[in-house]
């Protein structure tokens, strides 16, 4: 079996940039992508989206199109429809990258060997655990935006957008530009946040980015009902969403709604990194876990790197720069370029990164979700897969449960197919709250391979050596 120089997981801006750079430096490079075409979530459908969408998808989206041609020319191998589900570092320092690919009727697993691995797994929606968030008709706003990008789908009927963050404003503007009526925009950004955030980025206050963002907000305000400082939120309905109940100030209101789009930012997808043994650290500003990385994206596992939002949320432009920086580090580590060439090459990308990060502290502070929307109580579902309530977790935490992994054993939270992606942060923060500990001390749910489900047949299709057979066959010889 041939050993790749570098295997890259995820074809968003970080993965595309890293793969392009590695392949251009002569490294044998494979890019594994769960989707059918490059772009990741942020640039989903970038090679197929209709130019007719250009106007309301916005110029930031079309930036993604510039990443694809250099990637295609670079000589990197692109593997679409491939789900990487396990990653094992071997004694000789190489990695076994186990993945499934092939058409739905005939998927099979292989383990490829690579000298270095770059995880560019990006971000996922932050959980938004409010009463009724499991009802059909309640969708993540980021998901609704993907429907727009790939399928030209916009809401019909009574739609309510609720939450906070740039993506929610952008989606509202995109809908309004496309002529879609929005019943209400419920802004959950807590009162006083702007005053807290503004001093964090004096330069950013004058930048075109902020002006652009404010334009967007003003545009939405002129055309839709925006309710500020919403402090409580619940979706009501029997078998699907029928209404949204919310509180602002001392006022409580119920609005009929068929579609409720929720969003309160994104968090790093750390499943693969965590399962591979990378040390994770709690980021108190972003209220999430992220892999501990050095300035090149190197993790606590030698040879394993994380680039882009998977290493901490910083946005698409930063992801591109971080992808190139990691690419340079890998090219150096594998002996393709000298340390001096790496450092020289890095200068430009560090400047790009600094530029892209100018408003980050401001946005993080402004849009850190309110405690009430991160730490639910009562019957509100914390773990969607196994239907575990906040009250159950709080009670066991008060009774002295040791941590999230013990909680998982006790309640099955995080044992469903999503493996804790939509409850892990909630469980950690609920336990921290109940036990008066810091989330960093409570720790994270430990992700397990396969990080995405594979069928028993796919797993059985992996090559099995003598050693493995000997470990398994029960009858002694």
């Amino acid at each position, binding site marked *: 079996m041939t050993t790749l120089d570098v295997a890259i997981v995820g074809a968003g801006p970080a993965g595309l940039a890293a793969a392009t750079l590695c392949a251009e430096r002569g490294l044998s490079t494979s890019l594994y992508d769960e989707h059918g075409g490059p772009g990741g979530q942020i640039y989903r459908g970038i090679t197929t989206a209709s130019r007719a969408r250009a106007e309301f998808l916005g110029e930031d989206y079309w930036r993604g199109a510039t990443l694809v041609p250099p990637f295609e020319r670079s000589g990197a191998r692109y593997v679409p429809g491939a789900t990487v589900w*396990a990653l*094992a570092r071997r004694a000789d320092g190489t990695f*076994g990258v*186990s993945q499934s690919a092939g058409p739905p009727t005939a998927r099979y*697993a292989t*383990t490829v060997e690579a000298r270095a691995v770059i995880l560019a797994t990006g971000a996922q929606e932050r959980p938004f655990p409010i009463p009724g968030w499991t009802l059909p008709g309640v969708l993540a706003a980021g998901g609704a935006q993907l429907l727009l990008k790939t399928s030209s789908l916009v809401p019909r009927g009574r739609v309510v957008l609720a939450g906070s963050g740039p993506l929610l404003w952008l989606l509202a503007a995109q809908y309004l530009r496309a002529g879609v009526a929005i019943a209400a925009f419920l802004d959950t950004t807590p009162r006083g946040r702007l005053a807290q955030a503004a001093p964090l980025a004096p330069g950013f206050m004058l930048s075109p980015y902020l002006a652009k963002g404010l334009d967007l907000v003003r545009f939405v305000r002129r055309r839709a009902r925006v309710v500020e400082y919403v402090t409580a939120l619940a979706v009501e309905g029997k078998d699907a969403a029928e209404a949204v109940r919310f509180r602002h100030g001392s006022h409580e209101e119920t609005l009929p709604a068929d579609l409720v789009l929720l969003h309160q930012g994104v968090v790093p997808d750390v499943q693969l990194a965590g399962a591979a*043994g990378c040390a994770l650290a709690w980021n108190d500003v972003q209220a999430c876990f992220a892999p501990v990385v050095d300035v090149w994206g190197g993790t606590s596992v030698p040879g394993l790197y994380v680039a882009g939002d998977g290493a901490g949320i910083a946005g698409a432009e930063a992801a591109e720069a971080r992808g190139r920086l990691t690419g340079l580090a890998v090219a150096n580590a594998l002996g393709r370029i000298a340390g001096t060439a790496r450092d020289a090459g890095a200068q430009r990308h560090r400047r790009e990164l600094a530029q892209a990060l100018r408003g980050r502290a401001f946005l993080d502070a402004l849009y850190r979700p309110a405690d009430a929307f991160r730490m639910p109580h009562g019957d509100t579902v914390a773990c969607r897969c196994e239907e575990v309530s906040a009250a159950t977790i709080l009670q066991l935490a008060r*009774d*002295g*449960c*040791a*941590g*999230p*992994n*013990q909680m998982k*054993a*006790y309640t*099955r939270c995080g*044992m*469903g*197919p999503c*493996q804790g992606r939509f409850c892990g942060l909630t469980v950690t923060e609920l336990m921290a709250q109940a036990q008066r500990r810091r989330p960093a001390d*409570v*720790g994270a749910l*430990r992700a*397990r*391979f*396969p990080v995405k*489900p*594979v*069928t*028993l*047949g796919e*797993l*059985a*299709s*992996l*090559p*099995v*050596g003598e*050693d*493995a*057979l000997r*470990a*398994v*066959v*029960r*009858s*002694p010889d």
Partner: protein
Amino acid sequence: MTTRAYDVAIVGGGLVGAAIAFGLRGLGAKLALLDEGDVAHRAARGNFGLIWVQGKGRPEGEYRSAQREGRPVSLPPYAAWTQRSAREWPRLAALLREETGIDVALRQHGGLHVCLSPDELAARAQRLTQWAAQAGNEAGVDVLDRAGVAARLPGLGPDVAGGTFCAQDGDCNPLRLLRALHAGVAHAGGAVLAGHAVTRIEPAPGRFVLRTAHGTVECGRVVLAAGLGTAKLAPMVGIAMPVAPNKGQVLVLERVRPFLPLPLETLRQTDDGTVLIGDAQQERGLDDTLDPAVLAAMAARAARVFPFLRDVRVVRAWAALRVMSPDGFPVYAHSSAHPGAYAAACHSGVTLAAAHALALAPAFAADAWPAAMQPFSPERFDVRAIA
């Protein structure tokens, strides 16, 4: 930090320690169950959940590396001990339900070991027949041909040649068992202390001082049941506990509707509907990383037993470390140098939970060490007691 004092401290909040603590509750002693933090080599969370009798204590031993290295050891009292635990299990489950409201999903209407070739079946039949004939063995075993297995299980693959059936075998939900034992101890007034990994034990006249990650604990008696950690702690109270890790791996399939009426030795359906496939023995030290090739070998074998599982999804897998003594059998010990110190280590924490709670725990509370425990002493190994 203040020193807290207890009559008895049980070191180790896994299934062995928790079962012993549960057994000691209500005897009038002030109890503490000292548990590690959230991330530990916790065999109790990696458990497969069988209450397994067939073959236990069989003549050629059950620890493959012991066999390979030419140390096949028979321990017939282990067979009797296992069978006693299986008999006591309904009582344990009833106590847990009564005292904690937690149903541990006990089933004891038999279990099967399935063989995938005529050779495998012939070898298995010979060993299990010998085992059943051992003196004192009260459990019977039926050797089944393919038709016999097919009568009990649906949709068998063509490779299934037959199997062995034992009516005393069964299973339970091991995660709920752990939770119920902890809840039972707490409910009876015992202190369940998480984050209290014990780093040092200092024997003092009439008491023991335990240094933990979270302060000092004093106790009149101490029971060491910290799994692999016991190997280091036991010598501090004059007990030799030569246990070593043995890696097992488990696959979990998504929930499916109930299809499997009985547990198999390497495959069972939980009361939640998920399917566990457990197998593999490897000695890899404290390495508890998963090996995809081993998982693939397990998957392939399971798919040969039940081909219809091929398109069911694996949602999770894990490796856990068994606690293995040199012959694979349990070790129970008391300290002569430091009376009041005890230790227990074994790998079958679920099967033996009832024996540990209802028979072993009273031994730790008694004034004299029962003769019945003598076969499980570490003195059976060629080790010098470290005083």
